[in-house]
């Protein structure tokens, strides 16, 4: 049934031309990088300041203000781009706004002090795309995040949105599958299953009703790729899902999204409403007789629901428990019906693949891993943020050229890919190409795109213990090896970090870890031992130092370190004395201080606050 306010569309091209004809391309425009990360770093205040400043100068009508999704470079937000001129200002404060409006907007002058400064050359950079962080990236999926207002469907249509849907409806499901198969697109949730094959299997599966489900239960600590896409370009995901529904023969799709992503959920809701209004969702889509609708299901905060069989259980409203496969969801998924389950990034890729063709998509990447891959680059890295790079790029290029290296001139130690169940790779592996197969061979996983960089002050035993605490806590508890085994591994690791390691511990951990991987039911148990196994493989000497010498080389494990004050260096400035939360520091002003070991809780505040390097960690 057509709703009353639904818009009649003859063709997407006509609609796009109509939208473009109404636009004023020469109108000055201020683009604010939004998204959860942008708002958290102060973009909302910047938006308010811009509005009131434009109002003050009666420029509200003449200058358009656009809030987009996250542009990716989290480290320099809040940031804006001004057109004409494509001028980029980052790290803004509210007090910078009057100058920007009066100088750049009204006089066409550049505010030099707000330009980005390249750390290595000290050069000022005018355009966003010339910043080293962006230069080595290939932003295909994330490009829209900087270009469109996610709440304005016309913005999406203006840059070619929903043309791929029109094309898919015209060429039919079999041709869509052929294109996706030829493009080499593999699932971006982590396992890398070929998307075309998955859709073909679901299409051919027997079942009266079929479903397509979008996995947006992004639970890895430090990962925010899916959130950013849902917030910044929700229509890409929706368009991908409609094409998927049409291809597999489904009339209903579900987006399973974490409840911790309120902005993404809001943007999705509003995008779905608009898609209905324009007739991209609902009955008889674009006059083809195909009907499709999308519902949003909010996850309740369990990491395990990112695993496909658990996710489907959760949508059904059942207790989440991993289920043995086969039957695979493509044959028996949601409510026992054939179900195609795809990641946010996979579905966002679909309009690009269909719109630009298989060859365009596969012209970058490696033999077996095509296209681009999005990572959330975080941890001990100068340029933290969201990056999109061609498959096959090396870890070194990502960390040093895009990420700008390690802060404070510290030494790189390890990089972890694949979230809490991924492995940690050392310096020697940095020249390895990033693709599904290479990462697996190196003992980690591609995962859905978390990338955590660690510096020399990171203890690898403690890292393994931390991640195992997470996965152990998030295990559903159904199968014996994951429930019992990971708990035992965690006990051993905890003991080692306390200096109570036993000479057999490493052999036990290795054997037990491999058995858990072999015998566990689902992907959580099959990957949970990886942080421990990979750190034992690459940083064995660090484990041995903990076990044999009762030393933590990175000086992190509290039970193995001792704080003391070097009398020669201490000026008696009293700073540590004042900051110590347990009053463990004694000493008179201008005389060397001392730490009472019994009172010291090893919080490190004295070490951080001392300006004379007088606090020593042993």
């Amino acid at each position, binding site marked *: 049934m057509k709703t009353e306010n639904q818009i009649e569309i003859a063709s997407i091209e006509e609609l796009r031309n109509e939208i473009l004809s109404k636009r004023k391309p020469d109108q000055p425009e201020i683009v604010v990088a939004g998204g959860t990360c942008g708002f958290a770093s102060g973009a909302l205040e910047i938006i308010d300041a811009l509005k009131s400043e434009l109002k003050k100068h009666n420029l509200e009508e003449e200058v358009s203000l656009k809030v987009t999704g996250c542009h990716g470079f989290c480290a320099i937000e809040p940031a804006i781009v001004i057109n004409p001129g494509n001028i980029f200002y980052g790290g803004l404060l509210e007090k910078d706004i009057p100058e920007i409006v009066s100088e750049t907007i009204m006089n066409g002058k550049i505010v030099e002090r707000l330009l980005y400064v390249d750390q290595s050359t000290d050069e000022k950079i005018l355009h966003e795309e010339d910043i080293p962080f962006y230069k080595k990236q290939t932003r295909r999926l994330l490009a829209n995040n900087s270009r469109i207002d996610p709440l304005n469907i016309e913005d999406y249509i203006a840059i070619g949105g929903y043309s791929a849907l029109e094309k898919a409806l015209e060429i039919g499901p079999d041709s869509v599958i052929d294109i996706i198969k030829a493009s080499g697109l593999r699932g971006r949730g982590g396992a890398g299953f070929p998307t075309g094959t998955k859709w073909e299997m679901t299409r051919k599966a027997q079942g009266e009703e079929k479903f397509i489900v979008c996995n947006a239960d992004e639970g890895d600590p430090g990962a925010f790729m899916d959130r950013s896409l849902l917030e910044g370009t929700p229509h890409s995901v929706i368009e991908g899902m409609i094409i998927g529904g049409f291809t597999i023969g489904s009339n209903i799709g579900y987006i399973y999204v974490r409840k911790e992503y309120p902005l993404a959920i809001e943007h999705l809701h509003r995008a779905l409403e608009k898609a209905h209004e324009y007739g991209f969702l609902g009955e008889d889509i674009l006059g083809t007789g195909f009907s499709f609708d999308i519902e949003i299901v909010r996850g309740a905060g*369990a990491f*395990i629901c990112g695993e496909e069989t658990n996710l489907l259980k959760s949508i059904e409203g059942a*207790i989440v428990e991993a*289920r*043995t496969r*086969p*039957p695979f969801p493509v044959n028996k998924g949601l409510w026992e019906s054939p179900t195609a389950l795809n990641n946010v990034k996979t579905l966002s890729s679909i309009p690009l693949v269909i719109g630009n063709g298989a060859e365009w998509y596969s012209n970058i990447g490696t033999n077996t891993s095509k296209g681009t891959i999005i990572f959330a680059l975080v941890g001990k890295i100068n340029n933290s943020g969201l990056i999109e790079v061609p498959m096959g790029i090396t870890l070194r290029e990502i960390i040093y050229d895009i990420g700008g290296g390690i802060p404070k001139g510290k030494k790189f130690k390890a990089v972890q890919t694949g979230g809490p169940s991924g492995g940690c790779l050392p310096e020697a592996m940095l020249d390895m190409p990033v693709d599904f197969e290479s990462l697996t061979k190196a003992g980690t996983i591609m995962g859905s795109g978390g990338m955590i960089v660690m510096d020399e002050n990171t203890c690898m035993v403690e890292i393994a213990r931390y991640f195992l605490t997470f996965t*152990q*806590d*998030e*295990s*559903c*508890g*159904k*199968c*014996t*090896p994951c*429930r*019992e*085994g*990971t*708990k*035992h591994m965690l*006990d*051993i690791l905890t003991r080692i970090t306390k200096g109570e390691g*036993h000479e*057999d511990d490493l*052999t*036990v951990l290795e*054997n*037990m870890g491999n*058995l858990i991987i*072999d*015998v*566990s*039911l689902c992907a959580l148990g099959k990957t949970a031992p990886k942080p421990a196994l990979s750190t034992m493989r690459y940083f064995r000497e660090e484990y041995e130092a903990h076990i044999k010498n009762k030393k933590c080389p990175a000086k992190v494990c509290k039970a193995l370190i001792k704080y003391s004050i070097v009398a020669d260096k201490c000026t008696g400035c009293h700073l540590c004395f004042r900051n110590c939360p347990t009053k463990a520091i004694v000493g008179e002003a201008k005389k060397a201080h001392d730490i009472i070991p019994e009172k010291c809780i090893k919080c490190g505040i004295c070490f951080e606050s001392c300006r004379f390097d007088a606090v020593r960690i042993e």
Partner: protein
Amino acid sequence: MVKLTIDNQVIEVPEETTVLDAARKLGIKIPTLCYNPHLKPYGGCRMCVVERTQENSTRPPDLIVSCAYPAENGAIILTGSERVLKARKFVAELLLAKCPDSKEINELAESYGVSRNDKSDVVGYYLLNRAVSVNSTKCVLCGLCTRVCAELVGMSAVSFSGRGSKRKIKTPFDRISKTCIGCGACAYLCPTKAIRIEQAEE
């Protein structure tokens, strides 16, 4: 019908037959804990694992749970390979470390050669001698009680609570379940006799 090979014996079974049922038709013994023919396959305890590969496949064999895995055309199953026995022994050791006082689990572990004094089995020796002892219990969390109550009795008087290593079998709010009809099916099915039936005083 589908045709598969189990321990070098070819068998033809109707579609949707599990590997476990097919193996049992051949008289091959596979140990189970959480399995019951009248309930839906669960695949939680992992005792019934077997090795599976496909004719002419280049992929390395998988370890699968025979109680839940369907028999497929051309499947080649090994029920007693070294990998299978190692996996079952590991599961038995984990359960024995959890339930050291259970007679049934002790017997099961013994049948897989588990010995507290075997130092060559590093994992087992650790689990049974040095591992942090958790509160000793008889419950192996196989879920037979919750499943029989939900699937056959239709009452769901007991259920799982918590997740991961905090998982437990409980009645709602830890009180005497209002929906329990006292049929005793849960106690009857419990493989380790962790559930007792008591006569309540009027």
